[in-house]
């Protein structure tokens, strides 16, 4: 261990961030951050569009849950790099080329399991008596799901989305391996060119972005979830 070397890296990274050259052109920090967020957001949105309806429906009916959840969990077991390798030929065969699309395709399976599992578990966990009362009062089945089960499962649904988002933001760096944009660019290029200040800057930006996403979800959750679901002491 050479303490001096470590200090140098931090100094160099700081210097990298203060260099105005890194804020202009197609490789500018703000451009890469935007690309990264765009890719991540789209991946989470598509995954949510697939996983939420399935998770909510299965949670409501309690049907086929075993199969669906296991299929979703396969996504968890597959390494992201392997997914990227799978996604490449798919993207090529669809004429989507390198970069953005194969990365997007490989990120979606990563985001599906936490979203689907949490939606399912959240809905299943709603008090049976509350649902029976709702049905007994004449709420339709979609009405029960929309106005009773979903709001009550919201904390878990949101935490699934949050986990998925943080995972995707962290993993979207892999896109740079297949000529994609985003913050992975700095890491992959920094590694290739042995420019460790650039590599560190990229890693730092990804970590910061992931934390910000986490915090933003926390804020949103505090607003979106009914005060009635907090502990009685808080609500009073």
């Amino acid at each position: 261990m050479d303490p001096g070397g470590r200090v140098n890296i931090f100094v160099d990274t700081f210097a990298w961030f203060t260099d105005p050259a890194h804020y202009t052109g197609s490789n500018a920090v703000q451009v890469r951050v935007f690309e990264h967020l765009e890719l991540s957001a789209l991946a989470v949105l598509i995954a949510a569009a697939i996983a939420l309806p399935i998770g909510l429906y299965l949670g409501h009916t309690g049907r086929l849950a075993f199969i669906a959840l296991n299929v979703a969990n396969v996504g968890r077991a597959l390494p992201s790099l392997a997914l990227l390798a799978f996604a490449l030929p798919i993207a090529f065969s669809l004429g989507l080329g390198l970069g953005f699309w194969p990365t997007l395709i490989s990120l979606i399976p990563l985001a599906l399991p936490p979203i689907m599992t949490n939606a399912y578990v959240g809905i299943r966990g709603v008090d049976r008596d509350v649902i029976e009362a709702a049905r007994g009062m004449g709420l339709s089945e979609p009405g029960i799901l929309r106005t009773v089960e979903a709001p009550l499962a919201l904390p878990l649904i949101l935490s699934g989305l949050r986990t998925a988002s943080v995972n995707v933001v962290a993993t979207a760096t892999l896109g740079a391996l297949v000529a994609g944009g985003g913050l992975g660019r700095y890491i992959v290029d920094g590694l290739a060119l042995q420019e460790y200040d650039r590599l560190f800057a990229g890693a730092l930006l990804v970590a910061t972005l992931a934390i910000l996403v986490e915090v933003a979800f926390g804020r949103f959750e505090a607003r979106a979830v009914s005060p009635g679901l907090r502990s009685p002491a808080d609500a009073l």
Partner: protein
Amino acid sequence: MPNARGATVEFRDVTKQYADQVAVDGLSFTVPAGKICILVGPSGSGKTTSLKMVNRLIEPTSGAILIDGTDVLQEDPVQLRRRIGYVIQQVGLFPHQTIEENVGTVPRLLGWPKDRIRSRSIELLALVGLDPKRYAARYPAQLSGGERQRAGVARALAADPPVMLMDEPFGAVDPIVRDRLQAELLRIQRDQGTTVLFVTHDIDEAIRLGDRIAIMKDGKLVQYAPPGELLAHPANEFVAQFVGSDRGLKRLGLLTAGGADLDSGIERAGVDPRAPELKASTTLRDALALMLERGVQQAPVVDDNDGRYLGVLTLAKISKMLGSQA
């Protein structure tokens, strides 16, 4: 206060068959409009199943259940349930909604205008004894068990249902609160004129609340009668055991001193001075307890309102009243 008209509820040879057992077997009885009918029996007697067939949370295998002559099986279950109040033991208030929002559930489903829902919710909270100013904006988690049950009753009554189903609604609250809730249910039911079907396994609750009591065993109706008749003439050994060996005392709990055959030939001044003065509304059960406590054979009875002397109640008369119907 809007006086909702209760509906007649008729079970016509209703059977619920599950794969391995018959839960309800050929059930037939009629609850007159505006009356409280208590379904009572041991666990597994089919009382809750019977109740849930009325709003089709459980579908009968055969038979018909008619509300004011219309078979519930001919109706859309969702629409049907909006016209039937439903209260369960665990209440099932929506934890994410305020008490006011909870109470407004069915009116909202029926598409009432917002201000009407609001005024109705406020009115109902007051009716069940929850001060709207204090409770309307609270969440269920902020209420005690008894308060939640009141809110549950308010929610069930919101759209003036002609029929209300109650499944052991007071089973989970402590005896003092239960006693108060029972009294308020009677008041509200008289006031609203709703027909109530009420499931309990507590015979004392049944006797206190019921206009009619349906005793069930193994999915069959064993006896269907007003409480007084049930206590005086139990149909068989099972009913006699179920109502308890103190059924004579329970019957006295349904009768009042004012309604007894009083001896008015005795002067007020001539009554044993140790005797307790009874109000006409005192139940004979309480009167008996007081007389035994003081060791007297007779007690004067006075009018509740003006204190006018009505006559003397004697132990012999009480005993004779029990004997005459036994």
